């Protein structure tokens, strides 16, 4: 399957993404085989509140990239119902113009219980698209509020999409989503209030200060439905990537990401190995004792981890 993905087989690519999403055991081996081919795509995140026009912007950005001769993978995330586990993935509705272009691959993902604005498997799915050779991978988060900031760890460049009327000045100085922006898009800029949205963002950026040579997130006004401002937005996104490369930040960011990923994988491997090495019923015995307050969970955990001779 990894070979099929390397060779540009769209069906193999789609199948592998499903295995990654389902956390199928065979996905790990394929990801391992493809890993050396990753690290070439520019990963661009698009986040913002529901209804700000993220999908339409992604559609228009993809068209701009295609006009510039670049191929585009798109991962669009929508929320899973916490009650049924089902999801409606509707981002393709705004991307119908991209149909039929072999230089574009669109995949919809459900969050499957993850709360940071992406699904747990999103970063691995992005790796698969990267390995398949797409020049740019656009990652659209769920409609994000204030704290869904996982995208900043996955993408090289994060676009935060705002629209007029979505908040006053105080929203602009709160912590959270505005802090992760590398580029701001003020979409629906033909509507009343667009200029005051821009002003509020400028004020926030002024308060942030920033040293000379630092990247100050540019603010681009767009009307995605007409494509207005989107080439400028793409220019700013590309400029950010150049800045990352030239300043050495790209390499540092990548090391940080790899470190987080490795620590998480090590934790996972150790936990699995430890739980598998327990004698049958051992965990349950501790569960019972802790539930009856005969032991505390801290001592129980310590005993489970350290009792053996390994």
């Amino acid at each position, binding site marked *: 399957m990894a070979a099929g993905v390397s060779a540009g087989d769209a069906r193999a690519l789609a199948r592998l993404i499903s295995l990654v999403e*389902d956390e199928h055991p065979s996905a790990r081996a394929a990801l391992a085989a493809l890993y050396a081919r990753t690290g070439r795509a520019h990963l661009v995140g698009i986040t913002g509140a529901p209804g700000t026009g993220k999908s339409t912007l992604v559609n228009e950005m993809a068209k701009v990239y295609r006009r510039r001769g670049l191929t585009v993978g798109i991962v669009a995330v929508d929320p*899973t119902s916490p009650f049924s586990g*089902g*999801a409606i993935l509707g981002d*393709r*509705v705004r991307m119908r113009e991209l149909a039929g272009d072999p230089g574009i691959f669109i*995949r919809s993902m*459900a969050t499957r219980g993850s709360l940071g604005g992406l699904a747990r498997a999103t970063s691995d799915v992005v790796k698969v698209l990267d390995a398949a050779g797409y020049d740019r991978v656009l990652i659209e988060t769920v409609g994000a509020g204030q704290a869904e900031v996982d995208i900043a760890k996955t993408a090289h460049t994060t676009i935060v999409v705002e629209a007029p009327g979505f908040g006053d000045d105080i929203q602009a100085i709160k912590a959270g989503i505005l802090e992760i922006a590398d580029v701001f898009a003020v979409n629906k800029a033909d509507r009343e209030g667009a200029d005051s949205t821009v002003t509020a963002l400028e004020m926030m950026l002024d308060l942030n200060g920033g040293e000379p040579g630092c990247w100050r997130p540019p603010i681009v006004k767009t009307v995605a439905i007409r494509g207005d401002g989107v080439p400028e937005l793409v220019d700013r996104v590309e400029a950010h990537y150049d800045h990352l490369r030239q300043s050495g930040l790209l390499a540092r960011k990548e090391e940080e990401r790899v470190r987080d990923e490795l620590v998480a994988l090590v934790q996972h491997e150790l936990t699995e190995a430890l739980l*598998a090495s327990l004698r049958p019923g051992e965990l349950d015995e501790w569960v019972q004792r802790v539930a009856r307050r005969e032991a505390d969970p801290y001592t129980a955990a310590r005993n489970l981890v350290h009792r053996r001779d390994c």
Partner: protein
Amino acid sequence: MEGAMPEEKIRILIAKPGLDGHDRGAKVIARALRDAGMEVIYTGLRQTPEMIVEAALQEDVDAIGLSILSGAHMTLFPRVIQLLKEKGLEDVLVFGGGIIPDQDVPELKRLGVRGIFGPGTSTDTIVEFVREEIRRHRAGEPRQ
């Protein structure tokens, strides 16, 4: 993740091929499948068979549900089925709904449309049909 058996989610594409301009029925079905725990990729109005099959391939769906009210079902269904074959996707379950006269049903079924659901079908019936067909397919049982 190792250990627990991975869960294979059911993924379904719900599409409106052709020119008819309203999709209330398709949305009701999409919602019912969602409530049954499935991931439903909804592509909106006026999809061509080519767009539908491309989306089915990229999204790696188990099933495609087509809603047709325009009367063009005898051209649109066969075209979708033919394109699926060309792309090697013949094991994707195809079912449909909308305004489809009884006399056309046998021919559509012969072509490979597994289920046809007219107006008034309960959503439970459709959910059960999809679930059972996919369960059987995944278990490797032949389709009758």
